[in-house]
């Protein structure tokens, strides 16, 4: 496929690998933000092409991973109601809550449906006026405009049987939380390309300046990732800390204005809990005053639910780049994708799940 295949060819990737080998004189630790990038790095073995001094740590950009346990419990509670048709992206269906998961609710007779787009949930609501249709709106800035459009359309259509269970999170506040932590080891960031396709990258220069870290907007194919790593390391070796764009075919500085305008209308910025990390100020989105009647937490009275995470799981440290999956004694034994203890094993794009799939030592 055009704009994919040519970015997977080995020749260019090798060229960057040689350039990086010739460039690096010191140990450096970089973090890729997005779980999609983590998955690509481990799948294509990008990290194995780098000199020993370069460590890639994996960031918190996996929406399934960072969705807090209590939101999953709220989803389970709502989905089990007889009047509800609960719609979700496929990734969330098998994420375990405190006691069960959405697939188990479905098996027990709940009307749980996997949708490809939030607009599919709007369509189900239009066609089934006697059902309460709830869409599970999780994800980062990449997904938020699509979810915003679903509720925008529902309001325009006057749908009273549609609502959103919202758990949106924002990337820049999480980057700042990592950088300002006393145990931080990240010296440069590969920023998440598709988040920037929506939001642009005007939020990053203040972060780069304040914490003196290079930030390179990076894509998802092996060549994109190698270019991002190369530019980031080049800055570090030259003592610079600037914001660069290595994903110009998809990302502009100002981002997608129509999408940002809709986000501003439908959502407002709120503090959010991140699974494994805890609450981060101004790091999430909730429905704005004008759209609050579409809030499923209020409609179904589940706003009060809370839940405690597994004490054994170190996913918070993995998500902040302090530990790697193999550092956890439960990895691959008491914690597997089938029976995950926490955030980073839950989703196939979580760092622990990616290592489990591609890097497990042969038994």
């Amino acid at each position: 496929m055009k704009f994919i295949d040519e970015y997977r060819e080995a020749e260019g990737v090798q060229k960057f690998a040689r350039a990086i080998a010739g460039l690096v004189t010191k140990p450096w630790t970089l973090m890729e933000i997005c779980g999609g990038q983590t998955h690509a790095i481990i799948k294509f073995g990008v990290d194995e092409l780098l000199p020993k001094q370069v460590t890639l740590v994996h960031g918190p950009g996996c929406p399934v991973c960072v969705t807090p346990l209590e939101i999953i419990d709220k989803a389970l509670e709502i989905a089990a109601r007889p009047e509800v048709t609960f719609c979700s992206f496929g990734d969330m269906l098998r994420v375990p809550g405190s006691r069960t998961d959405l697939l188990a609710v479905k098996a027990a007779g709940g009307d749980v449906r996997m949708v490809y787009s939030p607009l599919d949930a709007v369509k189900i609501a239009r066609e089934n006026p006697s059902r309460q249709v709830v869409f599970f709106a999780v994800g980062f800035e990449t997904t938020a405009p699509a979810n915003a459009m679903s509720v925008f359309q529902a309001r325009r259509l006057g749908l009273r049987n549609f609502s959103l269970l919202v758990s949106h999170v924002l990337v820049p506040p999480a980057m700042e939380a990592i950088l300002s932590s006393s145990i931080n080891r990240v010296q440069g960031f590969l920023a998440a390309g598709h988040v920037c396709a929506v939001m642009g990258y005007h939020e990053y220069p203040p972060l780069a300046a304040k914490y003196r870290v290079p930030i390179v907007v990076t894509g998802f194919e092996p060549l994109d990732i190698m270019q991002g790593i190369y530019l980031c390391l080049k800055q570090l070796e030259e003592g610079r800390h600037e914001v660069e764009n290595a994903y110009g075919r998809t990302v502009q500085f100002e981002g997608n204005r129509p999408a940002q305008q809709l986000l501003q209308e439908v959502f407002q910025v709120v503090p959010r809990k991140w699974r494994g990390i805890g609450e981060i100020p101004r790091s999430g989105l909730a429905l704005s005053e004008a759209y609050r009647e579409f809030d499923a937490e209020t409609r179904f009275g589940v706003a009060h639910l809370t839940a405690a995470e597994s004490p054994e799981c170190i996913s918070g440290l993995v998500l902040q780049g302090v530990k790697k999956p193999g550092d956890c004694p439960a990895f691959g034994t008491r914690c597997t994708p089938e029976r995950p203890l926490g955030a980073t094993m839950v989703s196939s794009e979580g760092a622990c799940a990616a290592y489990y799939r591609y890097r497990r030592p042969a038994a």
Partner: protein
Amino acid sequence: MIMCLAVPGKILSVDTSHPETRMAKVSFGGIAKEVNLDFVPEAQVGDYVVVHVGFALNKVDEEEAKKVFEYLEQMGELAELDEKQSAEPGRP
């Protein structure tokens, strides 16, 4: 797929029958899907768009797409130059 996975596809046709929303048929390596174009009002038939959960997030900039390959070529030339220079005797 809620991960920030977004895939480039080519706009085959645009459905103009809905006054409030613009939908298109987009081909992903031969597989056609319905895609909402409301966030990319400038996108037209023949353009490539990056699609996430049924929405086009941006048009792919074909000029920008070439830049990494031009950069690689320049890097190649520089490396050759370096090798020649270091092969010269008397250089540190």
